[in-house]
């Protein structure tokens, strides 16, 4: 199935990706081919099949919800492109 340029732009917007015109055209072609391949899955009747949720046999094991020490603030802020007063600094969200 061939994706339209508009669909590619919609996906990129959902994924928060700014793409060039050239990229949009490339991904339109490549994604269309990949999605064609995926259509193979519709061959199978899965009406009575339960979907898999999670990997392997694993059951989630949750720990007690209790307060524990965490990494110090400076360790977490040292990788931030911008920080100020122990906080991540970002451009204005509202004008």
């Amino acid at each position, binding site marked *: 199935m061939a994706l339209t340029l508009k669909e590619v732009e919609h996906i990129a917007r*959902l994924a928060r990706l700014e793409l060039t015109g050239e990229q949009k055209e490339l991904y339109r072609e490549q994604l269309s081919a990949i999605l064609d391949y995926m259509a193979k899955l519709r061959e199978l009747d899965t009406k009575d099949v339960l979907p898999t949720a999670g990997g*392997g046999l*694993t059951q989630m094991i949750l720990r007690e919800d209790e307060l524990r020490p965490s990494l110090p603030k400076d360790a977490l802020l040292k990788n931030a492109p911008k920080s100020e007063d122990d906080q991540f600094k970002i451009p204005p969200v509202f004008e």
Partner: protein
Amino acid sequence: MNGSSLSPQSDKSMTNLTELTIAEMQAGLRTGDFSSRELVQAALDRLSKVEPALHAFLYIASEEALAAAAEADKKRKSVGATGQFPLLGIPIAVKDVLTVEDLPCTAGSKILEGYVPPFTATSVTRLKDAGAVIIGKTNNDEFAMGSSTEHSAYGYTHNPWDLTRVPGGSSGGSAASVAARCVPAALGTDTGGSVRQPASLCGVTGLKTTYGRVSRFGLIAFGSSLDTVGALGRTAEDVAQIFSAMAGRDELDATSADMPVPEINFDGDALRGLKIGVPKEYFISGIQPEVEEKTRTAIQQLKELGAEIREISLPHTEYALPVYYIIAPAEASANLARFDGIRYGPRVDADNLWDVFFKTRGQKFGPEATRRIMIGTYALSTGYYDAYYGQAQKVRTLIKQDFEAAFRDVDLIAAPTAPETAFKIGEHVDDPLAMYLEDVFTLPASLAGVPGISFNCGFDKNHLPIGLQLIGPYFREDLLLRVTHAYQQVTDWHKQSPKL
């Protein structure tokens, strides 16, 4: 076909040290034939010689490793016996999607350029606790997405058997560094084949663990229901040591399994009476003829060692590829949402927050990561979820049931690891579907979450290694390792090394 064929060097003893397996290193350390510092120095010397041609590493931690080795030597003197520290002073490399505190970590992506993690992955912590010395971080496809290591944003890794070819991926740097005798073992991760396929293409032994067997804490997430941490080494014995050191429950990963980790005993007859299934769906047209020939020969050898061979069917095998390339990108699109230029990595500046997200992500993710984020976002988007993601998770159940049914009849499954030997750099890089087909034999086990192993079982006419894959029931890494060991006792493919 020449075995150990390292070019003669002035300092012969140092060259020999990098030829040793972990088991041999341990013996030499015990008897005092050499120190850990000498082992680590030998690894670094070997690296400075071959790394310009290979580019297997993204970061070489020379100073840290030498300091850790000196510590290990001191500890050996003071503690004496090393039962508590089985890997004391052994150099190991770590794939760059696993964090090591204070060592730069990019996952092969520009969006994490400059990132220095403040914490260490549990798998690595456990190796360090066992005494291992971390030599550096190995190259991989960006966020472990790829089958050739060409999708690393920092340049590709070359296959040590033929520098014009890829090492496989995504753990290509780990596989190449083991094959080239830089380190005796390295950590890799396997989401759809990323330990087994590069192990096959580089002629080393690579174990993909059961989902949940090894903690994912500190593994930069790609497909959270598929990601596993594994090990690559030259022998099953060495891989078993790494596996035993890092496996087991970790409360920092809620999906890590609360299952006992058995001691792996290599004594006795691993193959006598063992039933091995050979799935007919793994010997399809399009597979390189020498791959079929050598893997069938290896299966025949397993029979001669006492195994009973049966043809079996895993009927939904052909659906594994479309299932995987919906589920893995869907999970990746969610996992990679965290990279937005706010908390780590570079930021592309803009006047408003919205544009910071779009520009940073648009400019810093490479082509394959972008492609997968797009596929995953589409598969999860309103109106398409049921048709793609929902249907894929249902077919995944059928694939799982194939394995469950097979393991009621057989103890292990044997098949080729990859449909072809190492391909040329650039051959598939612009054709995503052709690249995805490289994983066609490794994806089913990943989707089911069962363990698998790949080891060298011969060479093609270009002297490129061919891998045999064994797939086992949940949590039976011990069986995979014991059978591989038995095979390696009667063959010497794993002892051959590339000319470099």
